[in-house]
């Protein structure tokens, strides 16, 4: 397998039934890390992130023939991961005790879950991020941590770049206010 294969070559492998297995292996190898971190920042807990990531790859594997190539493969994968994360949080909220919000639940997970280790400022930033709306959190995570530009984020969230800019601006201001209060 080529060390750094192009998206086009990867798609060719995935669409051909004879090479689909090889294509899936290459796809997982290439995208499991960025997708895992994207999901993890949304659902916080490691085990939950693993479940969501599995669902993402199974969905991609089942629906790869429906990918028309209108957008980049990377954008399509990020979109599936985003939707799966939001769907997971929605399901989790339905299972929860009514008077606890999903934000409170995620904050508790942040303080108690395994595989979280950071300086106080990192934890404070995460707590501030958890206070944002889902869309603001997504935009902030993708722009600040994953360093995606506004146009890429807009494609993933199926919105306009201007809308993404506005969402990021609100998210940044809200986080700065929170950090000022905490520090």
């Amino acid at each position, binding site marked *: 397998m080529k060390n750094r294969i192009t998206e086009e070559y990867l798609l060719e492998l995935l669409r051909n039934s004879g090479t689909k297995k090889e294509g*899936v292996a290459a796809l997982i190898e290439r995208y499991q890390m960025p997708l895992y971190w994207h999901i993890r920042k949304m659902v916080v807990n490691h085990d939950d992130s693993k479940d969501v990531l599995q669902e993402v790859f199974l969905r991609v594997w089942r629906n790869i023939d429906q990918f028309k190539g209108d957008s980049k493969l990377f954008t399509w994968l990020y979109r599936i991961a985003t939707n799966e994360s939001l769907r997971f949080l929605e399901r989790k909220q339905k299972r929860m005790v009514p008077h606890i919000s999903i934000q409170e639940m995620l904050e508790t997970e942040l303080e108690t879950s395994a595989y979280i280790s*950071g300086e106080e400022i*990192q934890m404070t930033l995460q707590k501030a991020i958890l206070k944002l709306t889902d869309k603001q959190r997504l935009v902030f995570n993708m722009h600040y941590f994953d360093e995606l530009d506004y146009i890429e984020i807009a494609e993933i969230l199926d919105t306009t770049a201007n809308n993404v800019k506005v969402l990021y601006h609100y998210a*940044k201001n809200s986080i700065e206010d929170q950090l000022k209060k905490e520090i």
Partner: protein
Amino acid sequence: MNKEKINHPFIAPDGFFEEFKVEISEKMSVQEEKNHGRFRKILLIGFKYAAIIALSFFLGRESMRLFNPESSTSVQSEYFSVDAVYSQVSEDEISDYIIENVSVNELDQLNLKQ
């Protein structure tokens, strides 16, 4: 926020990504086998129904043939032709021309001549 970038505090367990690759590939194989099994099942059910329909059709046709042998169309039309001839000629005329083993066609022709 632009001054110094703060990283996220999340970490993944050691060897997680290597294990994940194997685990997800196994899951995909299992699901593929399941899908093949399901397809085979559907195909088998389809064949069963097709066989039942074909067998019922065959049995129906055979039973019609076995239990109603006299009603074949050629026999029926011969009876009707004979009736038609007898109804149009008188008994005397018939006795004049009747010949043993005369065919229906010949009777028809006689009738036409009259």
